[in-house]
Structures are given as structure tokens and as C-alpha cells.
């Protein structure tokens, strides 16, 4: 455990739980509210924000150059026409999935332990989507024409080409954003109203007053709130499956050996949740420690996330197995050749790193002591994040470079711009994240209070 909060009743009693029943609703309000309303901003926050912002600046620089000089700055070639761009896209979309899973799916399944993690994970979803959404635009040769992927009335009388999975992508991502953003914002309403009520600074109060859209905590408000959140959760739940299935179809619809796989949609979903949970852990563990929230984000929360990670990790492993099985079962020569090249060819180090990171490391989560060790969880999660990035890279690049026609074979080795593009997007993500943890309630206060109240029943 990173640090202990002696005021934390859970630690005092030594029986932490995902149902912090011995907490009082007012303690939660004070504890979480204080993080937002305090006038003392910790120095580390400023440092982290500054670093994140610098990375964001670098990201802006990269994208500006890409637009100006062309996507050729990235180490693309014919036939490797995608690389770090689409890898990043799939990676960041995947990161978002944990948030939706925790907030929507677990809400429907009435998993009350989700409450402590939900706000945080949902925010992560939005911010990851913000990052992910940039890549389909900026990977274009002519990004200023991205609008043409959207059906809008135009003088040319042209629609997008509906059979292209890239158009489905536009809808999948925009739907995802359209559902996630209101869901996230709606859950914030009661908390922002509470901040309004507690804030002493008139500016802060005024800001929250405006943001909470006149929430008064009426019975009718709460009734509509619950209906709406269940409705949005019901809409959001299929999105967990559909968005990444469609991202999977981006590849599976093609006729490229290594992409043309029926296992892709479910395998992509599992991978997305897997990487998303890893990102949740990487972010949550330091934060609960920094903000001393161990009593709200408890060891049990972390363990539950780790268990889910283990399950999705196994599904991902199954996906790898199917990728190996399908070509051999079908006996298709080109598919077999591609698989053999993946495991023993130019990119074999990438492939095996991916297998070790995602499959081998996640097996550690079978052990309870590992699952309950926040430091180990963060380390494993980091490895898994790298592994999942590699997974997308391996799928995209190895399938493209090992062209059906051997005359076209041409490996693409990431250059300076590619490597910078791997890291720079974290600038946008972290900047938004740090602004969020300082400016908005980190936990859904009202939901935690509700759980506490129910726990007393």
C-alpha cells in the first residue's frame, strides 16, 4: 500500500471492502469535495500538468507537421500504409472501453462496487476518445477533407461509401462519444450541485451553479436522473461490444492475410477492455494514494479490476490461439505463410514481446497476493499497456508488410516521428486527466453515498 490514511475507518478497522459501509455519507462528501474546493493546489499537480502540457505541445507540433508535410513523415511505405497512426487509434479507443464497461455494464448488473471507480473510469473513456478520435482524421492524406466521411447534404449529391468499414467507424465513434459524454455529464450533475452548495468562493460557486444546470435534488430530479442513467447505460452497454467490434471489422472486412479473421470483433473487444482496465489501474493506484482515497478506492476495487483483467487477458490469449489455429485449420497457404512470418519473421520480436506481455504477465493475476499488491498491479498493467499497443502494431504492420505478392514485401521500421507519435498523445490524455482530477469530483459522491446508505439498510 502506497500510504495509509489514519483517518480512514476502513484502515482502522482493518476490514476494507468494496462496500464501505462504515463510512458516513457526509465524510465522503467532505473528503471528495475538499479535493475540488481546496484552495491549496499540490505542487506535484502543477508539475504533472506542466509536463503533460509540454507533451501536448509536442503532439500539436507533430500533427502540424504531418498535415503540412504529409503522412510520409511517418515511416509508411507501399504496402505498409498504416502503422503508428491506426495502432494509436485502436489502442486509445480500447483504453476507453474500461470506463464504459465499469459505468454502464456494471450499473446494469447492479455491481455496486463500481461506484468508486466509475467517475474516474468514465472520464478516462472520454479523454481516451478525444485522443483516439484525432487519429482517423490526422492519418488521412488530406485531413481537411475528413468531413467527406460524414453523410451530409452537399452540392455533389455524394454520400459516403456505405460498404466501407471506415464509414462504420465514423458512426461507431461518434455514437460512442454522443452516449458517453452525456452519461458522464449527467452523473456529474448532483455532485456539481453539491459543490455549488459547499463552495465558499463565489466564482467557484457560480461556475458549478451554471454547470449543474439547476439541480436541486428534488425527488423528481432524482427519479428522472435514475431513469436517464439506466437508459443511457442500456444504450451504452451494447456500445462496449459494438464500437470495438467495428474497429475489429475495419480489419476483418479486408482481404488481407492476417486481417481477414472472423475472430477479430470479439477478440478486439476483449483486448480493449483488457487494456482499458490496465489503464484504470495505472491511473487509479497513484491517485488514490496521492489523494489518500484508500477508503473509497479500496483494495477490493483494485482486486476486482484485476480479476476482470485476468478474464479479458485470457480471452485475448484465446484470440491469439485462434489466429494461429485458423490458418492451419483452413490450410490456406498464404495465411499459414503470414502466421509463420509473424512468429519467425522480421517482426517476430514484436510478436513475442506482445505474447509475453499480454498472456504471460496477466497470468500473475491468478494469485491473490499479486492482485492485492498495488505496486505490482501498476507494473503488470504497464506491461500490458505496452503489450496491447504492440498487439495492434503487430496486427497492422506484419499483415501489411508481408504482402500476398512476395515482390511487394517491405518492412517498415518506425522512425523518429513514429516513436514521438506513440508517446505524444499521452500529453493530451494526461492534460485532460489532471485538469479533471483538480476541477471536478473524482468520485461520484452521490453514488457512493447511496451505496453507503444502502449498506446501512
Amino acid at each position: 500500500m502506497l500510504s495509509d490514511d489514519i483517518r480512514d475507518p476502513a484502515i482502522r478497522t482493518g476490514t476494507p471492502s468494496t462496500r464501505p459501509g462504515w463510512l458516513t455519507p457526509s465524510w465522503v462528501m467532505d473528503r471528495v469535495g475538499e479535493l475540488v474546493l481546496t484552495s491549496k493546489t499540490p505542487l506535484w499537480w502543477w508539475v504533472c500538468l506542466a509536463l503533460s502540457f509540454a507533451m501536448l505541445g509536442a503532439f500539436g507540433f507533430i500533427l502540424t507537421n504531418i498535415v503540412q508535410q504529409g503522412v510520409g513523415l511517418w515511416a509508411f511505405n507501399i504496402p505498409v500504409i498504416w502503422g503508428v497512426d491506426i495502432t494509436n487509434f485502436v489502442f486509445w479507443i480500447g483504453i476507453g472501453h474500461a470506463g464504459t464497461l465499469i459505468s454502464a455494464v456494471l450499473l446494469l448488473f447492479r455491481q455496486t462496487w463500481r461506484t468508486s471507480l466509475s467517475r474516474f473510469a468514465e472520464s478516462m473513456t472520454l479523454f481516451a476518445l478525444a485522443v483516439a478520435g484525432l487519429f482517423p482524421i490526422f492519418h488521412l492524406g488530406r485531413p481537411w477533407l475528413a468531413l467527406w466521411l460524414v453523410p451530409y447534404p452537399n452540392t455533389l449529391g455524394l454520400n459516403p461509401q456505405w460498404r466501407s468499414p471506415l464509414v462504420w467507424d465514423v458512426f461507431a465513434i461518434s455514437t460512442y462519444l454522443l452516449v458517453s459524454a452525456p452519461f458522464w455529464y449527467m452523473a456529474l450533475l448532483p455532485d456539481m450541485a453539491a459543490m455549488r452548495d459547499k463552495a465558499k468562493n463565489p466564482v467557484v460557486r457560480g461556475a458549478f451553479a451554471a454547470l449543474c444546470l439547476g439541480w436541486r435534488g428534488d425527488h423528481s430530479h432524482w427519479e428522472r436522473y435514475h431513469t436517464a442513467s439506466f437508459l443511457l447505460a442500456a444504450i451504452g452497454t451494447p456500445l462496449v461490444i459494438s464500437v470495438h467490434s467495428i474497429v475489429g471489422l475495419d480489419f476483418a472486412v479486408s482481404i488481407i492475410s492476417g486481417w481477414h479473421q472472423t475472430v477479430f470483433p470479439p477478440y478486439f473487444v476483449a483486448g480493449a477492455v483488457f487494456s482499458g482496465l490496465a489503464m484504470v489501474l495505472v491511473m487509479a493506484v497513484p491517485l488514490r494514494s496521492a489523494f489518500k482515497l484508500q477508503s473509497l478506492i479500496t483494495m477490493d476495487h483494485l482486486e476486482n479490476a484485476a480479476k476482470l483483467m485476468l478474464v479479458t487477458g485470457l480471452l485475448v490469449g484465446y484470440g491469439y490461439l485462434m489466429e494461429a489455429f485458423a490458418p492451419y485449420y483452413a490450410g490456406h497457404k498464404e495465411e499459414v505463410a503470414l502466421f509463420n512470418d509473424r512468429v519467425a519473421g522480421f517482426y517476430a520480436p514484436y510478436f513475442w514481446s506482445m505474447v509475453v506481455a499480454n498472456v504471460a504477465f496477466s497470468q500473475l493475476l491468478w494469485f491473490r497476493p499479486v492482485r492485492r499488491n498495488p505496486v505490482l498491479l501498476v507494473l503488470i498493467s504497464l506491461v500490458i499497456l505496452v503489450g496491447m499497443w504492440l498487439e495492434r502494431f503487430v496486427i497492422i504492420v506484419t499483415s501489411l508488410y508481408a504482402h500476398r505478392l512476395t515482390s511487394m514485401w517491405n518492412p517498415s521500421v518506425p522512425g523518429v516521428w513514429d516513436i514521438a507519435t506513440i508517446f505524444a498523445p499521452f500529453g493530451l490524455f494526461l492534460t485532460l486527466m489532471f485538469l479533471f482530477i483538480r476541477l471536478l469530483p473524482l468520485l461520484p459522491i452521490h453514488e457512493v453515498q447511496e451505496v453507503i446508505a444502502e449498506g446501512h439498510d
Partner: protein
Amino acid sequence: MTNDSMARHHHDLGHGQDAHGHGHDHPHHPDHDHHHHHPHGPQPSGPRKQWRSLEEMALEERFEELLRRDYPKQAAALEQSGLDRRTFLKLMGASLALTGLTGCATRPPTEPIIPYVRTPEEVIPGRPIYFASAMSLGGFATGVLIETHEGRPTRIDGNPRHPASLGASDVTMQASILELYNPDRSIDVRNNDNLATWEAFRDALDAALAALPADGAGLAVLTERVNSPTLARQLDALLAARPAATWYQYEPVGDEAILAGTSIAFGEPLTPVYRMAAADVIVSLDADFLTGMPGSLRYAREFADRRRVRMIGGQTTMNRLYAVESTPTSVGAMADHRLPLAPSQIELFARALAQALGVGAGAAAVGLWDAAFFNTVVADLQEHSGNSLVIAGRGQPPAVQALAHAINAKLGNVGRTVVYTRSFPAAPANPGSLPDLVQAMNSGAVRALVILGGNPAYTAPADIGFATALSQVPFSVHLSPYNDETSARCTWHVPQTHYIEEWSDAVAYDGTVSIVQPPIGPLYADVRSPIEMMALLLGDTRSSYEIVRETWQATYDGDNFENYWHQALHNGVIGNAGVFVEATLRDDLSAALPPVTMTAAGLEVVFQPDANLFDGRFAGNSWLLELPNPISKLSWDNAVLISPNTALQLGVQNESEVEIIYAGRTLRGPVWIQPGQADNVITLNLGYGRERGASVGQGVGFNAYAIRTAIAPWYGSGAQVRATGGTLQLATTQRRYDAELNYPVRVATLEKFMERPNFVDDKVHRQEIMLFPDFPYEDYKWGMAIDLNTCVGCNACVIACQTENNIPTVGKSQVRLGREMYWIRLDRYYEGSLENPQTYFQPVPCMHCETAPCELVCPVQATVHSSEGLNQMVYNRCVGTRYCSANCPYGVRRFNFMDYIDTTPILQEVRNPDVSVRAQGIMEKCSFCVQRISAARIAAKKEGRRIQDGEVQPACAVACPTQAIVFGDMNDRNSWVNSLKAQPQNYALMGDIQTKPRTTYLARLTNPHEALDQSKS
């Protein structure tokens, strides 16, 4: 800042010390300067440094710099004319204004020119006009058709009426249009590399000639191989007028050995002309007659005619080709049996062959070669006496040349598969060689040297010291299109015309003569042709047009010369074709044969002209620099080609830097391992490592001339090679060469094919399951068939496509990344052992699939199917997702990863106005030359008919020397393309994935001798 305040500011700065700030305490009235200034006029020596007008600017010293930089020609004129600056500026202002009036860079010549198809009265804006002319390379002409758009030449194709072309073209012919607009072209007369004028040169030449004795002693003329009857006539006249003057001729890729060989065999220098069509069995002794010899285009056509197997309605036999060669060429790739041998062994092989066939009584030569191969060659030649052919390559020593002629004579082939023509043009006097000239220069005998074309300072053998000797000549002038290595060492340089800009005449490999007619006048004022330079030497003031006409008027014996001339210009051929002579083999041949010269010591070196740059003259041509070598697939470089075994022995790999020590000189270059290369042989391509006059080609590759000697220009032994430990990066466009994954090239022996005509389906799991019925194409249904059995891998299609479709070059670093932009590429596969693999070529354009995977995945409908079956790119609609390229199983789509458009103004002139130039971020690919289809459709519609078969031909098909690429309407039952697609060996590339390509291939067939047929053993 306004102009006035600017002037003030300058004024203050100019005054320096006396200006105590400006503005408040030292106000200037705007008119103050003006008033102060004008009454006194310009004061060059005064303290004033500001200027407000061109007049004042003329006073500035900086002005001269500026003038030199921006208007070099005018600067020179200013110096020569002694005009005062003010007058000069007035003139210049007027000339700048006039530039606006003339506008276009191209203008027609003043003389009457005759277009190939339409007469000038029919100039229709937007419709190209073609002119017949001829391009000479290495002293041999090939007929061309120059396509012009509103007077601007944009494209060169072969002239169908010219025997050396038959409508086909090669890479240098296609790329020669870029030479016309090459920004590197020299446009100024230079004296010791300083700007000068034509008038100044003329005066200097007159003075130099006047200083010589009347008999011309001390005057020397150095030419390339002269193949212009008019130029020969002028040389004759010069030598007659000045009997002590001397003429030298040097061609770095020359035919001296061939002439020496015929001299030995027949007693006089004759040029052999082969009749491939009559040959059943061909044995090549390091002769690349398919792509690397004068007449290759015709030889390739005739060769292909004998290999085209058509089970339905055609021949079912093939000729048989044996290739003995050191380094792989297209002849080796097309051969039914190939024997890699070191050069020294080839000479022995030729002697042994001659002996086995009963010619040349010398001692039995024993070599290290496969006896079965040798015996089969002997038996096959004997069996096909009269219908066989032995060809010795340009570089083979005279003895081998003579033996090849002797074998042909012995077998009764002379007159049937090989005929002889007098070496043309009949030389006025035998020219001296380059070493002779060096000797004369060193002895001080040469007082004035006129070099007409060529770049001998770069191409001369390293051991004769040409460049040093040249520097000693007091007056030397180099006529050259580029200010190159030779120009730098001459006292004068005169820019040379491009063949598109000059009047001349030129002889082809078989003696056919063409008039070189210019569809445009020279782009630059000071350029001169060799004929014009000779006229100057002769004091002939007539134009080259008149001089050329005079040559032909003199030989014409009819009564309507105008008509004759008109016909000649129109057809591109003048007079009768070449005249062939009886060649009788010398009786005492074995006595006349030189002894074996080459000994196998150390590594053997082979010098060969580069497939693209030839002798280096095209080193400034970015198209040819980027064009991948058809065999090695190297782009933007030459390399030290060695065999896999030799690489193993030397401990080097691809891109390892090695040092070659040969004949006392050293050279460094990167290694490229070449399968099929003979062991212990290093092959060096000439033409690279240029130092001057070729800005894009300077520093590209290494200069193999640096170790080439005059005695052994083609082969040498005793070389040592050691790895330096360094690495030099090379760019290649094909990284794997195995073809077993999905059999892109299907191969069978002729015999197997006869047994099993549908063999192409054997290895393919073919099934047709379609959810939807086929689209009914009611009008046209375009399709293409490519016969791999006749594709000789010459690259002509690749570069023809590049010129036609405005395809950019991307540079070495982008090629290394794999971003070359070719719409049609030439894949090269190997099968069998790396020591001597079977080589297959496969041109791959867009397949225009019926169920195109690219169309399915484009999100914006930027690639769609036309009602005539074309898979079309809509550039304006493309947003650049590149998914179409990923989903293309043939890898034919090309993406503008960066801005590849070259904006050099003069290079805009070469662009085809019918094809749009693509911007950054856009996908592009082969369009089946849709612009040509549209043009034909418009023409047909106007006449109320359908497009005829053959009326539309894409650029690749037109250029193809072997007619391997056939395009047409698949709805036309009798179309040529349908007759190919009906053949049993027709197959779709990766047809099993049901893309239903419209471009299909005809399988590669081989015709092995049964004694050597490996498929049977």
C-alpha cells in the same frame, strides 16, 4: 514602412556617421532627396548609397552581382557590348516586357516541318500532333515519333515505319524527352567557365583557326561515333580543305570489337545485322541482343515472334535460346538454357565451340563448363544448320567475334539468320582513336581541338590521361548539352541542341537513314548542333536545314525532290533501307585469329553500359536514375555485382563497401549480390559517379571509368577486392524474389504445355461463388493480357507510363522507404539455385478487378468502377485513408506520401496536358490510360462508329518491343486481347481470391532441349 520612409532610412544608414538619428531632429521632406538628387545626375563616386530606381541601382557594385546571378546572358552581353549601363537597362526593360509577349518556351522552327499524321493546317488545340524523327545513341539511330501539344513536345514513342523501332521504344528513348527540358542543360557559351557570347566564341575560333597553317595542321576534331551522312560529308569536306587536320572518334560504348571481328573474318569491317525471325536456335556469347544492342528493339520483336505460342490460331513451336554470360541480362533471363561463365571462360568456350563445329583449327580449348550444356549446344546448332545463329556480344574480343561469324558461315546461317552491311557512314578517312588523340595532344601537335558532343573527360579510359592532355590544348571547344567534366577542361563550351531541336540525319543499325527533323526551334538561343559547328569550321553560312537537304538532294535521282523530301520527313525514313553485302569468310581464318588474351587470374572485371544511364550521358535524368534496373532492381545507384559464392568468399553482404584494386587503380563501391552472376566476376555498370553537369546524378554511385583501361575496355582479370568494413546504402524496389507462395508466374515447358494445356490451373484452388450476377457491360469492356513468354524485362513500359501519366520521381531516400510511384512495375522472380536461377519478369499494372477490393473499402467513393469496367481513381474525391492500397492484393496503388510535385518551371513543359498532376495525400494508380480511351471514344462518336480494335493502346503497350502487352475491348469477339485471353495458358494473378482481374497473364513457357530438360530427370 512607406517607400519614402524606406528611402529616408536608407539615406540615414548610408550617411552613417553624420546621421544623428532620424525622424524628429533630422526631418526629411519626401521631396528633399528627389530635389537634391536629380539636377546633378548620378554620382558614382559620391557618398550616397541608397537607390530608388533602376538607374541608381545600376551604379551599385552589387548590381553586377545581381545581374550575373539573375540575368547571366545579359550580363555577358553587357560586358561584350560596351553599352553604358543606362542604355543597357532600357534594352533589358524592353526585353523583359517582350518575354511576356512570347510567353511560351517553345516555338516552331522557321523551316517547313512535316508532321507524321496531320498537316500543320489541321492544328487543333488539345489534339496532339506527331512528328517523325530519329534519336541516336552510341552512334546508332532509332526512329521516333515526337508527340507535340500546341507545339510543345511531351512524349517520344517509336516510329512504326522505322525498322529499328517498329513502333517500340526503349527506356532511353522514352526518357529523352526529359533531356530536352532538363534544368541542368547548358544554355550559355562559356569561356574558361565564364559567361561568354556566341559572337565572342566565333571570333575566338576564327582567331585560333587563322593562327594555324593553311593546311589545317594542329586542328583536330573529336566526334562521337558519326552516324550522320551530312556530318560525315562535312568532315570529308573539312579534311579535304585542310588535309593536315585530324579527325578522331570515340564512343565509350562502341563497336570497335565487332568491326575488328568482321575484319578478321571477312577482311573488311562489316556490321552484322541479325535475322532473329529465321533462327530456330540462338546461342548468345554474352550478347544482350534483347535490350542492350543497336537494333535490340527489332531483335526483341523478332525473337518474341518466334516464342509466342498460341494453341488457338497460332504457332505452337518456339525457338531455343542458349545464353553464355558472365552477368545476368535479359537474354539470360529469357534463355532456355543459361550458362554463367567468367569472361575468360567465354572466350575459351567460343573457341571450343568453333572447333567442335569444324572452324578454327587451333588447339582444343578446354574450359570449366558443363559438358552436357556444351555438347547440346553443338548438337543443336548442327541440327539446325542454316536456321541457327551465334551472336557475340559487343565486348567480346575480336577473336570471339570472328569465330561467331565463322560458325555462322560454316553452318550456312550467313544470308539467312545474319546479314552484313558496310560499316556506316563510309568514313572519309579512318578516324583516329582517343589514345591517338591523347598522344597528339601530349606532343603539342594539337593547337585547336573541336569536340562535338560526348563527354570524353569523364568517359575516357583511365590509363590514357585524356583529361590532363586536354588541359594542355591552347584552344579547345566542347559542344555539349551540359556544362560537364569535359567542358570544364576546355577553353570554350558551346551548348548543344537536343535532337528534338536540330536538323540532321542518322543511320540505324541496319543502314536505314532517317532525317532528324525538329518539331520545335531550339529552346535556348545559343545552342548549336554538331552540323552547325562543322558548318562554322567550314565557313559555311547556310542553315543546317539547307545543308542536310543538300546531302539528300545530291543522292536523289528522281524528278520531284520536294515530294521525296516531304515523304521522308513524314515517314521518318529516307531512301531505301540498308544495303547488305556478300560476306565471304577468309580461308586462312585460323591463322588470322589473335591468340587467347585473357588469363583467369584473380577476380575478373566486367564493365557494362548501364541499362538506364548508358555511358553516363543520362546521369542528369531523374527518370532514368530512379528507374530500377530490371535485373538487380537497384534504383539510384550502380553497385559491385558479385555472385552469392564470391560474396561468401569475400565475407561481404549487400551494401558492404568494397575496394577494388585493378590495373593499378582503386575504386570503392557497395556490393550487391546478384544471383546468376558467374563466380569470381565483378560487374561494374558505367555511367555513374558523375562530377559535373548532372545535378541530380552527381554523387550517385561510383565512376567505373576510373579503372577502365583502353586495352581492355570490357573485360579484365587480376582484380582484387577487399571489404573496407564500411556500408553504403542502396535503394531497391524489390526485396524478395521467391514466387512459390501463390505462383504469380506460372511456368511450364512447351512439351508439358502441349500435354496439359490447362496447367495454369493446376496449383490453384479455383472456385466461383458470387452472391450477385455479373454486371452486364453493354458498350465497351476493356481488358488487358500480358504474355510473360515474350516479356524481356526491358522496363520500357515502366518509363512509358511515367512519361504518359506525369508520374513523379521521389528520390533515393523515398525509394529506400518503398515509396516509388510507378503505376506499372516490373517484378522479377527467381526459381532454382542462386548460382544459376531461372529468371522471370512480370509487369504488374492495375488489374482493374471486376470485384475490386479497393472499391469496397474506400469510405468516400474515390475509387469506383466505370461502366466500361475500369477501376477509376477520382483524385479530387480522395481523402487519403490508403485503405484501398492495403486491400489491393496486387500492390499496384501508389500514394503521394509527401508533396512529390517538382515545381521547377521548365519541367512543367514535359507534362502530359491530358493527365492531372496529383497532390500530396492522394492515392493514384494505373488508369489503363483512360485519357487515351476518352480521346478515341470522342473520335469514334464523331464518326458514328465504335472504337476499332487497336485504336486505343495504353502507353505501356505502345512502348513494348515484343508486343507482350495487349489491350482492347473484351466485348469485341475478334479483338486481339480476346484472342490472347482465349488461350489455355491465360490465367489471372491470384485468381483464387475472386477479384476477377481484367488484366490477365499468359504463362511463361520454356523450350528446353530434351538432353538438358531438368523437369524430366
